[in-house]
Structures are given as C-alpha cells and as structure tokens.
C-alpha cells in the first residue's frame, strides 16, 4: 500500500503565545477530524507534526489517520525554521519508503509550513538540505504581518499569507490544508498527473492570500 506522507511544520515560537497557538492546536484537531470523513484520505494519508521554536522536534511521527493523536504544544522561544527544514529532510529520509525491487514505495510527501515570524537561525543551510528532497509540493503560510512572504518564497513558490494570525484565519488555513490533502489523496494515483503546484488545489478561502 502506497502512503501519502504529509508533514506539517508549525511555528511554536513565543510570538505565537495565546490565541495563535490555541488556533493552531484547534486547527490540527479540526483538520484530522475532517480528514477522517474522507475515505480516500484514510486509505492513503499519513500525517506528521514537526514544531519549531528554539529547537525543532518531530512531535508526531508519520502516522495514519485512524491512529493519529495530537500532543500538546506550547509557544515559547525563538524561530528555528532552518532546523525544522533540516529535520523534515531527515524524517523524509527515514520515514518515506522508496520503491525497491522488493517493495512499492510511498508517494512524494506534501509539506505545509506555517510561521508567524522571521527565522532566527541559519535557515539557509536547512533549506539547502530540504531542497535535496523531492516533495509533491510544499506550501508555506505567512501568518500575520510579522512573517516575511518573500523569505518564504525562497523555500517554495507556493506561499500563502494570512493578514492576521487570529483564530479565524488560522482555522481557515487548516481547513484549506485538509481540503488539499483530500484532493491530493484522490488524485495522487493518477500517475504522471501528480498534483505539483497550488494551481490544482481547491481555491483557498478569502482569508488566504496567495503570494505571487
């Protein structure tokens, strides 16, 4: 069975304290329960959560939707986006199965990054590592005015921005992410016609601005 790996990289730095971090937690929960209503997603999608503040850690390893359990997250510290990119590269190496003579491999992973600030670490070296891995697509979300869309553009061409990092915008972002996973888990097997950019995903809700 080919899996569709999905990595969520979530900013949990100090600036996310309060409403934003609560909205992220809620957003993940709502996303999981909405994906659990989609049989295609349950068949193929596996979700991992990576958070980054002063360091980056994989809070939830790649897990199928039926067994997924969210763990608590707290907002604290700085914004180690570079470390998070390095970590997701390692996770892709370790968790995403390659096709071998013996076994069918997984689909290329989807990566969603959400941040409300500017990286405080040497993020370029992390980006270099990350760029060596193949993803089906990577989407970065700049949440609120403190994030830098142009910087995120260097990570991926698919950048969306939220005007404010309030609970309503953040929940819209997560519902769009779950719709995107839903669409991709359906389409991913139309071999050769893989979803590769933001153009083929469901249109983002009005609160999301696609940065071109």
């Amino acid at each position, binding site marked *: 069975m080919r899996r569709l790996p999905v990595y969520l990289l979530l900013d949990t730095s100090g600036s996310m304290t309060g409403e934003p971090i609560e909205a992220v937690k809620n957003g993940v929960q709502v996303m999981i*329960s909405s994906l659990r209503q989609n049989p295609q997603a349950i068949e193929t999608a596996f979700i991992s959560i990576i958070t980054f503040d002063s360091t980056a850690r994989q809070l939830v390893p790649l897990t199928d939707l039926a067994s997924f359990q969210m763990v608590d997250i707290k907002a604290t510290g700085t914004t180690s986006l570079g470390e998070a990119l390095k970590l997701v590269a390692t996770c892709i190496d370790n968790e995403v199965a390659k096709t*071998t003579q013996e076994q069918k491999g997984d689909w290329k992973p989807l990566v969603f990054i959400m941040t409300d600030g500017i990286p405080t670490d040497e993020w370029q070296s992390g980006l270099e590592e990350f760029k060596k891995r193949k993803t089906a697509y990577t989407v970065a979300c700049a949440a609120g005015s403190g994030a830098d869309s142009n910087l995120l553009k260097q990570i991926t061409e698919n950048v969306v921005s939220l005007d404010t990092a309030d609970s309503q915008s953040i929940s819209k972002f997560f519902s769009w992410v779950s719709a995107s996973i839903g669409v991709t888990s359906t389409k991913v097997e139309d071999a050769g016609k893989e979803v590769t950019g933001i153009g083929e995903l469901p249109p983002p809700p009005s609160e999301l601005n696609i940065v071109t």
Partner: protein
Amino acid sequence: MTNVKSVSSIIHSGKSYQYIDNGEPMRGGMKDVYFAPDRSYVIAFYRDKQDFNSKERLTKLVTQYYDSFFNREGGEYYKTVYSWPTDVVQVGSQIGLIVPTYRKNFFFAKGYATSDGIKGKEKQGLWFASAKFRNKQFALRLDESELGNWLSYFQIAVKIARGVKRLHAAGLAHSDLSYKNVLIDPVNRDATIIDIDGLVVPGLYPPDVIGTADFIAPEVLSTKHLELRDPSRKHANRLTDLHALAVMIYMYLLYRHPLKGGKINSLDTEEDDLLSMGEKALFIEHPTDASNRPKLDQQPKSALPWADISKLPYTITGPYLKALFDQAFIVGLHNPQQRPNADMWEQALLKTTDLMQPCANPACDQKWFVFDNSTSPKCPFCGTPIKGTLPVLDLYYQFKLTVWKPENHRLMVYHNQYLFQWHVNRNIVRNERLTAEQKVPVGYFTWFNNKWVLVNQKLSSLKDLTEDKVIPVGSMVEITDGKKLLLSNEDGGRVVVITMANK
C-alpha cells in the same frame, strides 16, 4: 452570513432556481455545490469556464437524453439508478447544473462503529469497497448495521451493471465510473450513479476527464503521454467503462483491487504506478503468471482477510463470475474488445444469486456464500459446513421436441427459498423490465417433515416427470435425488433435474 441567490436556466427561459450561498460551498474536484433553500436540489457550479462544446453536451444530457431515459416506460426505475442533472443554469460566465438531492438512504444513519464522525454524510462508494472499513480491528471501521451482507453487494452490483447497460444502449459512456461516483446503500441493497455530467455523448467532443485512478483502463494510461487530439491516444469510451465496471464489481465482492499486487515494474514510484495500472497491468490472481500476487507482509493488517487471495480467491464468487473476471482481467485486460459487456455482468450476477446459500452460523460476517459444487460444502468466510442434504436444481430448455439441453443455470435450494417465473420459463428474463406480477413467486421450497418439498403456488402445469404425476396449485411435490420436474408446458417452459448434494 447566509444569502439566498437566484440563477436562471439557459434552457427553459423564465425558469430560475434559488440557492443558499454562505460563502462555504461543498468543494468537489471541479465544482462548488450549493443547496436549494428547501434542500430538494443542489446547484453545482463549475469552477472553470465551460466552453461551447461542454455547454452543448450538458444541454443534450438534461434535455434529449433526460427524456429518453426517464420520460418513457421504465423511466421510474432508472430515476433510482442515476442522479441525473435536470437543468443547466448560468450566472455571469459560470455554468451550473441542477441535480436532485440524493435519497435519504444514501446518508449514513450511524456511520462509524465507535463515533459519530460520519453520521449523516454521503455513503460514497469507497467506504464499502475497501477491506479496512469492515475490519473489526480498525479504529475507523463502519458500524455493522451499515454493512449489509455479502448478498447485498451482488444486488448493488446488479444495479450498477444495469445503469451502465442502459447508458451504453443509448450510445453514451460514463467515462469516470468509480467508487467515487456511485453511492452505495448495502442496508437497502441500493446504489445510484452520480456525477453524470462527464458522460461521453456521441458526435460531441468528450470531456477532458481521464477518470479515477483505480479504474482507468490500461490503454488510456499507456497512451496518456500523447497529445489530447493525437489519433493514437485512447480516450474514455464504452470499453473503458467496461474495464471500470469489472474493477468495481470485483472490489465490491472482494474488497481488494484486481491489479494492485506486489510486482515492481520500475524503481521510480510514479512510473511504477503508471506501468502497473497501464502497459504492464496484470491480474493479481492470474492462474499461470503469479508475479503480481499481493505480498501479505507488506499489507496493513486492516486489509485482511480480503487481501489474502489464497484464503479468499476470486473463485468464491462462483463459476459464472469467475468466467467473466477471467474475461475482463486476463483476456480483455489489454484487449478492450474482449471485455464482458454490462448485460453479461448483470446476468452472471443474478445467476450467481441462485447459487447462494445462507450461512448456518448466525455470527458469520457475510451471512451468504456461493455453493462451491463440492461434496462437503462449507462457508468460505467462517468455515461453517452445511448441515443436511442440499438440493441442486439444474435447469434445462427444450431444444427439439424430445431433446432438452442444459441452460448452464442452476438453482440451489434452501429453506423458504422462492421459485420465480424467470426460473420456470426461458422467455422471461430477469431484468429491470419485469412487471410487478412477474416478480411474485410462483412457488417455494421448504424443509418439511424431514423432507425437501416444492410447494406449488401458481404453476398451472407443474408435473413430476419421474412419477408421471401432475402437481396442482396448492399442493406440493417431494424433492428427491434424480427427480425430473416439468415446471411449465408453455412455450419456453423448463425442466429441472434434481441432484442431492451433501448426502
């Protein structure tokens, strides 16, 4: 922010439709869907602009084809087979379809066994085509009350086959038959084909859909890299529908995909998938080429027991369906003209239901199974053997005055099994055109005073040929090994020969 909006039909001038726009439509692959204020219909707007060809195609579907399918005798039955759009609307440059709301039984009454997560949601076909959702160890399994029994899926498959048969009879092709585009209700043994708007209409440009991954015919996948209008490129048509139909029937009876096995055709994942479903597609249960057998150690536990083709091989679906699966996945897989048509599937499914026996084990998950023609028959799902004798009736038709030939149709008897007109007379075909009167049983079989008997309810010329005795209506005849019964002396009337199995 709820907002009632109004749109006009592009077909019937002056006709308009209202819908509720709360800014959050249900988003499908290509369309945004809004409800009518009274929920009696939905409006599905295409997100992309539809060109002249598409508008013309949709208009034909809701006018000319709607009339020929539904506004004539038998039309009421077909209204239950499809969720067919009834009108085309336009607002600005956006085109939308009016589609009646699905019947209530196509929404989950309970849904998951352990939560309310999908209660009230549509019963999209995939919920019932995957082994996972019926595995008792799987956290997101469906409640038993939603699953029906194995017989339910034969009836569901019959309904889908009839839907495809009628489309093809009209020269149409669905082009995207899949578990995504049917709704399934195993409880009421009901199914309906949805997303009719992709139909290929003769003489008009086909829609640009390629289909749903698991169901795309090999020839379409292997020519997909060619330009859209390249003459060598294969498009969705009647024959690709027949591939999809075969895959769907296999999946609804065996809860696994007939082509997804363990064979690696390329080390590149995407290319491997393209080859495995396209150019190099191979039946996982191919009798002589075992190279694509599923590797059980690479399957999730939730795929069992169905993933195990040695435990539940496709032959458990009986001889008639086995022959058609061979035809579809061995002979016709890369030779589209050889694929069985929808009518053949319908007839094989119906004949197979005549071979079915109820399982004696009340805890059996499937409740029904196909008699395997063995001397000591048992349920393949739970292993429970059949107790007592088992009458097997082979049907014969009159070829010449004194020559009777086998129909290749057999009826397995069980307690309180009915006999119908279509068993009695070969001129009566069991299909959707049967009249209400033809659906009334003409007799029944029962285990009575330690004997198998047939009780005659309506057969005016039933005769025990072995004992040369007429069996009038309201009386019964004992069913014994080797006995011959004439069911009717009318034109097309059949003789049955009885064999007692499991003696």
